C-alpha cells in the first residue's frame, strides 16, 4: 500500500507523537471532539488486514527459518517491526548495569504484538507509599480512573470475569473462553496448594463490540496481529477508525527529534525527520501530546532544550528519565507425563492463557513488598522453530509401558516417535511483578553518541534491589510448588542468588514506565495529575511515562484509561480558552 504524501495543515490543534496505546487513544478522543490532529509515527504504515502485511494463519514452512527469531525477536511471524536492537538506533548502559529497550517502529507500535493482558490497577496500586512507605503515591486514585477503565472496556473489549477482588477490580468483561487441558491441570494443582486461579483478562473479542471488528476465531496468534481486528491494536482499533471519521492526518516514517517552544516557553509544535528521505519538517500545533513510549518521550523532552527550558523541556525538577521501572519477570518449565501421547484436537484457543493468578498473598506476611501475578503456558501449539529439539536431555523423561526410561539423545524411528509422544506435554509458569520505582534507576542523554538521524541517544542505569530479588525468589518457590503438585517433572535448575533468581534483565518484560511521573509537587514530578507538564501547560504525556508506580499489572489498560482522561481534560481546557 502506498501512502500519498500528506500536505500538512498550517497549524493543527494537536500534534501527537507516537501511535501506540496512548497516542492512538488520544488521536481518537481528540479528533472526535472536533480538534484537528496530526499523528507522527516513527515507523511505517501497518495493517494486518491487508494481505501484504499478514503473518496470521501462515504455516511454519512458509518462513524459510520456520519462525525462528533471527530477524524478529519474537519469531518470524510476530507482528513487531523492531526489537531490542534496531540498526542505526543505538542506546547505551552505564556503570555495568543492564537495560534492554524494545521499540516497535510501526503504526500502532508495540500494541501490534503485545500479550493482550488487560488489567486494571486497583485502589491500593495508586497508594502504595501510604501502605508500605516505599516509592510514592499517585496524585490520583482508583476512583479517578475507574470511569475511564469502564469506557476502555466497552470501547476496546476485554474478556474476563467479575470476581469481586479488592485490588483486581471488576469490569465490563466479555465472556472468557474455557480453560485448555493443561490449564485445568495447572488450576487444579495451584488450588491444591492455595494459589487461586481465575479466567484471564485479555483484550480479545470473544464477542463483537462494534460493527468494525470481527469476533475471535481462535487461532492462538494474537501476537501476529489480527486480520479481522478481533484483538486490540492501536492502529486497527483507534488510529485507523479515527482517520476514517476525519480530522486526523497520519505522518508515518516521521522521527520526531524535538518539541518546539516559543519565546514564552510554550510548546509550538514538533520537528521531525522523514526517515525515508532524511529531510526535516515542522508541524505547528496549539497542543503537543507525547505518546512515544516512556523512554522515547523522556529522550525527546531531554533533547528539547531552549532558553526557557535549559534542562530539557518540562525538566526543571530533573526527574525526567528518573524512576524508570519495568515489571519483574521470571519463569519455570516442566514436563507433564500425564500429557504424553495425548489425544489430538485443535487446542489453539485465543492468543494467550485462558486462566491466570492475580497476586493473592498479604505483603504484611512476606519479606518483600509488592506482588506478582502468574501467567500459565503450554498446550498443543503450532510447531515452530525449536520443536523437537533438546532431546539430548529431555528424552529420558519418556518411559515405555514397562517403565523403562528412553535414553537421552539418539536417532532413528524411536527418536521420531518420542518427539511425537512429548509434543504438547510441556507447561510453564511466568511470574510478573511490581518493581519499586527508584530515583537511581534512570535513562539520560548520552553526551557522545547520536543515532543515524543525528539525534542524541539514551543511556540507561538500572539495577534490581533487594525487594525485587526476594520477590523473584518467592516466585520460584511458587513455580516449583505448583508444578510439582501437578505431577510435573521440573526442567532445569532453580536459579539462585548468583543468577538473581532468574530475573530477566530490566526492560525484557517491556513494561517500562515512570520516566515523566505525575505528582502534585513540581519539584518531584514532571506532570500534574492530568499528565500536563507542570512547566509547559500545552504539553501532555499519554504514554506510561506518567506512571508513579506500575503495580503487578500490565500497563496497557491504564495507559489507555489515562490517555482518555487527559484527552478529555485537553478538550475541556481548550473550550475554556486555557490552551
Amino acid at each position, binding site marked *: 500500500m502506498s501512502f500519498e504524501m500528506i500536505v500538512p495543515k498550517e497549524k493543527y490543534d494537536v500534534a501527537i507523537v507516537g501511535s501506540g496505546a496512548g497516542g492512538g487513544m488520544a488521536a481518537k478522543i481528540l479528533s472526535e471532539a472536533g480538534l484537528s490532529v496530526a499523528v507522527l509515527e516513527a515507523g511505517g504504515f501497518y495493517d494486518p488486514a491487508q494481505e501484504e502485511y*499478514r503473518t496470521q494463519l501462515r*504455516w511454519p514452512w512458509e518462513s524459510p527459518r520456520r519462525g*525462528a527469531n533471527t530477524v524478529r525477536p519474537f519469531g518470524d511471524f510476530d507482528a513487531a*517491526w523492531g526489537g531490542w536492537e534496531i540498526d542505526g538506533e543505538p542506546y547505551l548502559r552505564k556503570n555495568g548495569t543492564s537495560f534492554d529497550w524494545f521499540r516497535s517502529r510501526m503504526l500502532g507500535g508495540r500494541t501490534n504484538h503485545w500479550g493482550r493482558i488487560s488489567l486494571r490497577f486497583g485502589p491500593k496500586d495508586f497508594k502504595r507509599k501510604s501502605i508500605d512507605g516505599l516509592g510514592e503515591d499517585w496524585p490520583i486514585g482508583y476512583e479517578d480512573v475507574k470511569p475511564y477503565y469502564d469506557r476502555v472496556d466497552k470501547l476496546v473489549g476485554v474478556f474476563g470475569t467479575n470476581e469481586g477482588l479488592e485490588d483486581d477490580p471488576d469490569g465490563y468483561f466479555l465472556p472468557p473462553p474455557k480453560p485448555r*487441558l493443561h490449564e485445568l491441570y495447572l488450576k487444579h494443582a495451584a488450588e491444591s496448594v492455595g494459589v487461586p486461579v481465575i479466567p484471564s483478562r485479555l483484550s480479545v473479542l470473544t464477542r463483537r463490540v462494534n460493527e468494525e471488528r470481527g469476533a475471535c476465531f481462535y487461532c492462538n496468534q494474537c501476537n501476529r496481529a489480527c486480520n479481522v481486528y478481533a484483538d486490540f491494536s492501536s492502529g486497527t482499533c483507534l488510529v485507523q477508525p479515527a482517520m476514517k471519521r476525519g480530522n486526523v492526518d497520519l505522518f508515518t516514517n516521521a522521527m520526531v527529534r524535538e518539541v518546539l517552544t516559543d519565546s514564552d516557553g510554550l510548546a509550538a509544535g514538533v520537528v521531525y525527520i522523514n526517515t525515508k528521505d532524511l529531510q526535516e519538517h515542522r508541524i505547528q500545533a496549539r497542543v503537543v501530546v507525547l505518546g512515544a513510549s516512556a523512554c522515547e518521550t523522556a529522550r525527546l523532552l531531554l533533547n528539547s532544550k531552549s532558553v526557557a527550558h535549559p534542562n530539557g523541556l518540562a525538566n526543571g525538577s530533573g526527574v525526567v528519565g528518573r524512576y524508570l521501572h519495568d515489571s519483574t519477570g521470571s519463569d519455570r518449565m516442566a514436563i507433564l507425563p500425564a500429557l504424553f501421547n495425548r489425544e489430538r484436537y485443535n487446542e489453539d484457543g485465543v492468543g494467550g492463557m485462558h486462566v491466570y493468578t492475580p497476586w493473592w498473598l498479604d505483603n504484611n506476611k512476606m519479606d518483600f513488598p509488592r506482588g506478582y501475578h502468574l501467567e500459565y503456558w503450554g498446550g498443543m501449539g503450532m510447531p515452530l522453530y525449536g520443536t523437537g*529439539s533438546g532431546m539430548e536431555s529431555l528424552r529420558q523423561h519418556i518411559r515405555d509401558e514397562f517403565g523403562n526410561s528412553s535414553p537421552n*539423545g539418539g536417532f532413528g524411528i524411536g527418536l521420531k516417535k518420542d518427539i511425537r509422544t512429548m*509434543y504438547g506435554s510441556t507447561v510453564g509458569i511466568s511470574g510478573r511483578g511490581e518493581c519499586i520505582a527508584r530515583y537511581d534507576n534512570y535513562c539520560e542523554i548520552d553526551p557522545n553518541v547520536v543515532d543515524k538521524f543525528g539525534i542524541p541517544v539514551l543511556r540507561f542505569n538500572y539495577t534490581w534491589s533487594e525487594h525485587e530479588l526476594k520477590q523473584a525468589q518467592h516466585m520460584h518457590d511458587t513455580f516449583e510448588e505448583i508444578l510439582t503438585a501437578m505431577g510435573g517433572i521440573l526442567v532445569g535448575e532453580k536459579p539462585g542468588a548468583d543468577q538473581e533468581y532468574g530475573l530477566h534483565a530490566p526492560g525484557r518484560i517491556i513494561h517500562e514506565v515512570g520516566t515523566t511521573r505525575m505528582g502534585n509537587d513540581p519539584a518531584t514530578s514532571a506532570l500534574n495529575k492530568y499528565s500536563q507538564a507542570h512547566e509547559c501547560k500545552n504539553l501532555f504525556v499519554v504514554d506510561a511515562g506518567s506512571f508513579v508506580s506500575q503495580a503487578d499489572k500490565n500497563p496497557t489498560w491504564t495507559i489507555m484509561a489515562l490517555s482518555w482522561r487527559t484527552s478529555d481534560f485537553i478538550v475541556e481546557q481548550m473550550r475554556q480558552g486555557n490552551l
Partner: protein
Amino acid sequence: MDRREHLKLLLAGGVGAGLFLATGCSEEDRRQSEEILRDTGYGYGRADYEEEHDRKLFSETFFTETEFEMVKVLADIIIPADEESGSATDAGVPDFIEFMMKDYPPFQLVTRGGLMWLNNQCNSRFGKTFLGCNEAERLEMIELIAWPDRAEPDMQYGVRFFNRMRDLVATGFFTSRMGVDYLGYQGNRPGFWNGVPEEVLAKHGFEYDQKTQDESIKEEDRYRIAEWDDDMNPI
C-alpha cells in the same frame, strides 16, 4: 503462469493463503510458486528490509556439495522414513539447514568443523571419509556420538556436533508440512473453542464446573454485539 505472474500472486497472497484454489491455479503452478518463494523470500508479510535480507541469504550457498551430501545422510539417519511418513530429506530438511547456516552465522564454524571431525574419525577408523563408508560403518560411528550419557570423553566434540544436528533435523522435520501432519497438529484454522472434548476431559479426570460453563463464551453469542446490565454483567 510466468515468473512475473507467480511473483504477483505471491506478493498478493502467498502460497498458504488458499489463493491458489481461488484463482484456479494448478498443482504445478503451486510447486513453481513455492520454488520462487524459496528463491525470493516473498510472501508472508515481510517488511522491505526483511525481504532484502532473505533474498541475499537465498543467493548465497554455504555448504560444499560434499558437505551437503553428508547433511542429507545425517538427516535421514536422525529422522528416517517409516510406515507413517517420509524422512527428513523427503521433508526438505537439508535445504532448511543450509538456510539456517546463513541465517544464524554462529552455526557455520561448529557445523563445518563437526563435519570435518566426523570425516577425521572415519578416516582414522575405516581409512575413508564418512560418505565413503558403508551404512554399517556410518552407524558404528554415529553410535559413538549419538548417546550423550554414555559417550566416551574423547567423543564429546562429536556429541556436541550431533546434538546440534539432531536439533536442526528434528526442528526442520517437525515444522515441515510432512512433519506437522505426522505430529498431528490440528490448529491454524478458524473455528470456535468450546473447551476440551468431553471424552478427553473424562480420560484426564476433569470436568468443567457449573460456574465455568455458565460464564464461558457460547458459540451462538460470538457475533452478538456485547451489552451489559447495571451490575457489569454481560447480557
